[in-house]
């Protein structure tokens, strides 16, 4: 497979090394000449010291025959443009962009980047896993980002314990659809009685989160009093 990597920072450097080790053909583009030479000294003459955003140099680097273009510079706007140029101008089948500002994910997807890797989002997700149990856990953003997949861990004192979804005041545009009980996923029907320790999985509009929180976890006051 021929992979064109743009951006010779830490990510691009290690990515290139790993790809070579697994036997792929790789070209790395790095616009800083000094940095490019430094990498070339170590891994050989597959480094092009040019700006990968520039159409002319992308072409010279063989973009038109690349199977994959990975844009991993530190600048989101550069990564976006590299992927779009690869996709629309050079007909590359698969483009991967590093996204630093999580707010840009939706735009990048919409504008045709095939895969988006967001280190910021990943670290954020990892931190949120550790957030105290009386919070709603964000599992994923759905659609264009206006819907969220949420997990609520029911504790003693939650208004939902001992009740079924039909007894709760679930905000419009939200759906409680499954529970995880003792490690087993079960469908959540309108008459399924929820228990302490259940994890309720819900899909809802972002703005309904506070209401869902109140129904499944309890109001902020009750949570604090616990």
């Amino acid at each position: 497979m021929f992979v064109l990597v743009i951006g010779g920072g830490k990510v691009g450097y290690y990515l290139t090394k790993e790809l070579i080790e697994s036997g792929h053909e790789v070209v790395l583009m790095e616009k800083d000449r000094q940095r490019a030479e430094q990498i070339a000294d170590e891994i050989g003459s597959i480094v092009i010291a040019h700006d990968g955003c520039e159409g002319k140099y992308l072409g010279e680097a063989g973009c038109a025959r690349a199977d994959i273009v990975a844009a991993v510079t530190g600048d989101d706007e550069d990564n976006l443009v590299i992927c779009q140029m690869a996709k629309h101008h050079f007909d590359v089948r698969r483009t991967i962009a590093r996204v630093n500002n999580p707010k840009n994910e939706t735009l990048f997807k919409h504008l045709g980047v095939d895969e988006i890797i967001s280190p910021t989002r990943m670290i954020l997700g990892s931190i949120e896993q550790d957030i105290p149990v009386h919070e709603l856990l964000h599992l994923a953003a759905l659609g264009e980002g206006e819907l969220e997949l949420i997990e609520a861990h029911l504790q003693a004192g939650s208004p939902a314990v001992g009740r079924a979804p039909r007894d709760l005041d679930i905000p419009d545009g939200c759906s409680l659809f499954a529970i995880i009980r003792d490690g087993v996923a079960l469908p959540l029907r309108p008459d399924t009685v929820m228990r302490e320790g259940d994890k309720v999985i819900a899909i809802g509009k972002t703005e309904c989160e506070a209401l869902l929180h109140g129904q499944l976890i309890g109001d902020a006051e009750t949570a604090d009093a616990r």
Partner: protein
Amino acid sequence: VKVVIVGCGRVGAVLAEAFDSGGHDVVVLDLSTSAFDRLHASFAGHAVRGDGTDEDTLRRAGAEDAELFLALTEGDNRNIMAAQLALESLGAGRVIAKINDPVRAAAYASLGIATLCRTVLMSDAVLDFVGERVSGMPGIIAPSGTHHGGHAEPLVATASPAGAAPEEA
């Protein structure tokens, strides 16, 4: 007409003043407040410090109902991203981006953005002045297509309806 200009450099400032004195409602954005020194004291539009590649900033600057959106910073890619945010996410009317790389300028025109290429403009001006053959490329390339070859409709249309039920997701 409401005009939003990203980048208050020489060109941005001249255009901001021109649209302002033409009676239009102008908002000009720049990352640095000192860029606004270029504006004449009589400039009656809004000068906003902010990042034109940030969707919230553009929304605050009123890009959603801008009939004309100009991306004129020094960075081709920043201009491209700002222009696409305005066009695709915010639904601005006409969008023009300065893209000095002729290849990118041509490519993005076919993706729905009018592109202004200083490289072509200036080299053609010089060639024309000294009587050599010019490239014949237009200084501003009109948009000739959209970026989505038939897949999604613009973000702005999918994000707006208030009652998107979960079942539809």
